[in-house]
């Protein structure tokens, strides 16, 4: 007698993961890595502020681990044979190369799996969801606000191009002026500068991003992140992509609702958007076996 397990039937309802299986999921691994990277940067930042850098003990700044710093100093690094703009070091270039290598293999997976600022936005949105679940009045208010804002949804498509402008400004500005023109407006930098009670334009951007994250998932990543813009473009050369199997998919749109980047997953055949951050929340949430799968294919054209 042969036994056909539920897991192998395409289009069947997926069994809910429980216990150890849930702990060993890619979702759990992703959250663990995001939290670990955030914690590492937080420890580095606090230590740097507490110890300072004028004494005998020298501590690294959190900025030394930011790939965006590598992108901003890249022009000077290449054209001068190894020197950097202020606040950038060799580590920035190495972390940038690592992020670009990930983009070439797995699209914007750096944003989805590693970036601590993406993690912060994820946490704010999760907090928002938890609050809305427990407080009906807030749920109604957010729903009403979203309904009013739906008219502005048409802008989403155009606003996503903003990040390429930010990328051009940050890279060309650093190349032209020899310092990080983007740094004062960088919300990630602003977050850690708060430890030193330092306020700049980035503090306002940070506040906007955190408030917006309550209503929209990953607003900074969708519309303004210059690093995500760069890795997204390079990621178009990745051989890995998401495929929706029409015969298994019931077009329930759970995947689209789960996508933190607001991509229309349930209507696509292949998901090769430069905005896809490879978080695989869509795969995790999809209730049907085999309806969404990661595939290895030919870069750009897929298949």
């Amino acid at each position, binding site marked *: 007698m042969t036994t056909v397990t539920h897991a192998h039937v395409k289009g069947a309802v997926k069994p809910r993961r429980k216990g150890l299986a849930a702990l*060993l999921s890619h979702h759990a691994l992703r959250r663990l890595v995001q939290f670990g990277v955030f914690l590492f940067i937080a420890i580095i930042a606090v230590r740097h502020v507490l110890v300072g850098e004028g004494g005998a003990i020298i501590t690294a700044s959190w900025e030394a681990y930011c790939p965006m710093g590598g992108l901003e100093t890249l022009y000077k690094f290449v054209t001068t044979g190894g020197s950097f703009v202020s606040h950038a070091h060799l580590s920035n270039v190495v972390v940038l*190369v690592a992020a670009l290598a990930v983009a070439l293999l797995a699209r914007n997976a750096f944003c989805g799996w590693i970036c601590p600022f993406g993690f912060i936005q994820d946490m704010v949105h999760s907090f928002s969801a938890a609050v809305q679940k427990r407080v009906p009045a807030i749920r109604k208010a957010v729903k009403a606000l979203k309904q009013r804002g739906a008219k502005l949804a048409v802008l989403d498509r155009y606003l996503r191009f903003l990040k390429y402008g930010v990328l051009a400004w940050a890279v060309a500005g650093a190349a032209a002026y020899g310092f990080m023109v983007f740094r004062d407006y960088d919300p990630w930098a602003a977050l850690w500068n708060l430890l030193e009670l330092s306020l700049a334009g980035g503090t306002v951007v940070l506040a906007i991003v955190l408030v917006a994250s309550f209503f929209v998932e990953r607003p900074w990543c969708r519309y303004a992140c210059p690093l995500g813009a760069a890795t997204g473009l390079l990621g178009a050369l990745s051989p890995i992509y998401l495929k929706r199997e029409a015969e298994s998919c019931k077009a329930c749109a759970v995947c689209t609702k789960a996508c933190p980047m607001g991509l229309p997953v349930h209507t696509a055949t292949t998901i090769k958007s430069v905005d896809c951050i490879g978080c695989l929340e869509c795969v995790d949430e999809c209730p049907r076996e085999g309806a969404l799968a990661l595939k290895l294919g030919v870069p750009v054209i897929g298949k």
Partner: protein
Amino acid sequence: MRINPFIYGALVLVLFFGVIGGAKAAGVWSVSGKLTSSGEKALPTGANPDELKGWMTLDDVAKAYNVPVAEILAAFGLPADTPGTAQIKSLESETFSTTNLRTWLKTRMGQ
């Protein structure tokens, strides 16, 4: 070919941290101009005064360029009781700066 999501995540992490780990192992890593790739305090080598930075101390300069601290202080009219542990940038005035010290050392070395 289908890829397991968990394997995908593991690949991303191995690649990202592998590149960083590889660079560190190869010595291509520095998180501060004040630290070497092995994490130790960067010190002047005595080969070229252009390497001097404002955060270096008078003792660092004296040791690397084999010049007494007292001679540096006298050359720039700095107080004789200035400690050797003072950073160059903390002593900057109209007559003393990192650039002036570099130029003075170059002249002294005959460069």
